[in-house]
C-alpha cells in the first residue's frame, strides 16, 4: 500500500504520513436511544467502494480532514477540511 493522499493543506503526500480515522458517521445526540448508540459505537458500514472517511495528517500539518476514497482501488477523489466543507454548504 503506497498510494498518495492530497492533504488540503500540504498537497500530495505518501499515505504513511497520515492516520486513518474511520468512516464518517453521525454521532447520535444524548437523547437518542441505546440501540442508536450501539449502532453508532459498534457497527460500521464497511463499504466496498466509495466512502467518506476521516484522515489525520500526523506527519504534516496535524489537521483532520475528510476524504472520498474508493476502498477497493485506493483512488482518492476528493479531500476537504471540515471548516471548508461548512462554507460549501
Amino acid at each position, binding site marked *: 500500500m503506497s498510494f498518495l493522499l492530497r492533504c488540503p*493543506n*500540504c498537497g500530495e*503526500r*505518501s499515505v*504513511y*504520513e497520515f492516520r486513518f480515522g474511520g468512516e464518517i458517521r453521525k454521532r447520535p445526540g444524548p437523547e437518542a436511544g441505546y440501540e442508536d448508540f450501539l449502532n453508532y459505537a459498534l457497527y460500521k458500514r464497511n463499504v466496498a467502494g466509495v466512502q467518506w472517511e476521516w484522515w489525520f*495528517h*500526523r*506527519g*504534516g*500539518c*496535524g*489537521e483532520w480532514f475528510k476524504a472520498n476514497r474508493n476502498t477497493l482501488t485506493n483512488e482518492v477523489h476528493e479531500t476537504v477540511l471540515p471548516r471548508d466543507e461548512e462554507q460549501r454548504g
Partner: protein
Amino acid sequence: MERQSPLHHFHLEARAQLKNFSGWQLPAWYSEPSSELEQVRASAGISDASHLAKLDLRGPAVEFPLPARLWKLTPAHALVTSPRTIDFTPSSILTDVTSIYSAILLAGPKSREVLRKLTTLNVSDAAMPESSARQTRLAHVNAIILRSDGFLILNTRDVAEHVWEALLHAGAQPFGMIAQQQLTGFRHEDA
C-alpha cells in the same frame, strides 16, 4: 543563567568552543570558523540554531517587525521565527513555542542531497522555493522545514540529537555560530 540547547552534549563531546549568544550557550566554532565556512560553501553543513525565538500563530497572518519572519504553514497556521526575542501579547491564537522546537540550519550546495536521504518531501527548487515552509517527516520524526539561506529544520526538542545524528550520517558536517552568522548575516550581541 544561560539557556542550554538540546544539542549541548554533542557540542561538549565535539570539544566546541562554547560561548553566550543572546542568552544561549552555543558553539562559536568546532575547529575554526573560516574553514567551517569554507566547508559549508563547498558541500553541506549543519549548525545549531536553537536560540531562534519561535511563535505559533493560529489565525490570519499578522505583521511582525524585522528581523522576525513569518512562515505560512497552512492558510490558518503560521510560524514566526526571529534571532531576537519577539515582542508579543499571548492570546488564544498566539503561543510561544521557542522551547518546544530545536532548530538546525542545513546549508551548502549539497544540502538537497543530504535531505533526499532522509525525507520523501520534494525539496527541489521548484517544489520548495525560497521562503517556503513544509511540515513533513524527516529521519522518521516530524519536522518543519523552512527554506531560507539553506534549510532550517525544526523538530521537537526531544528528538534534536537523533535528527542531528541522521544529518551527520547523511553527509553534513557541523559548523559553529561564527560561520552561521556569516551565512545568515545576523550578528548576536553577546559573542
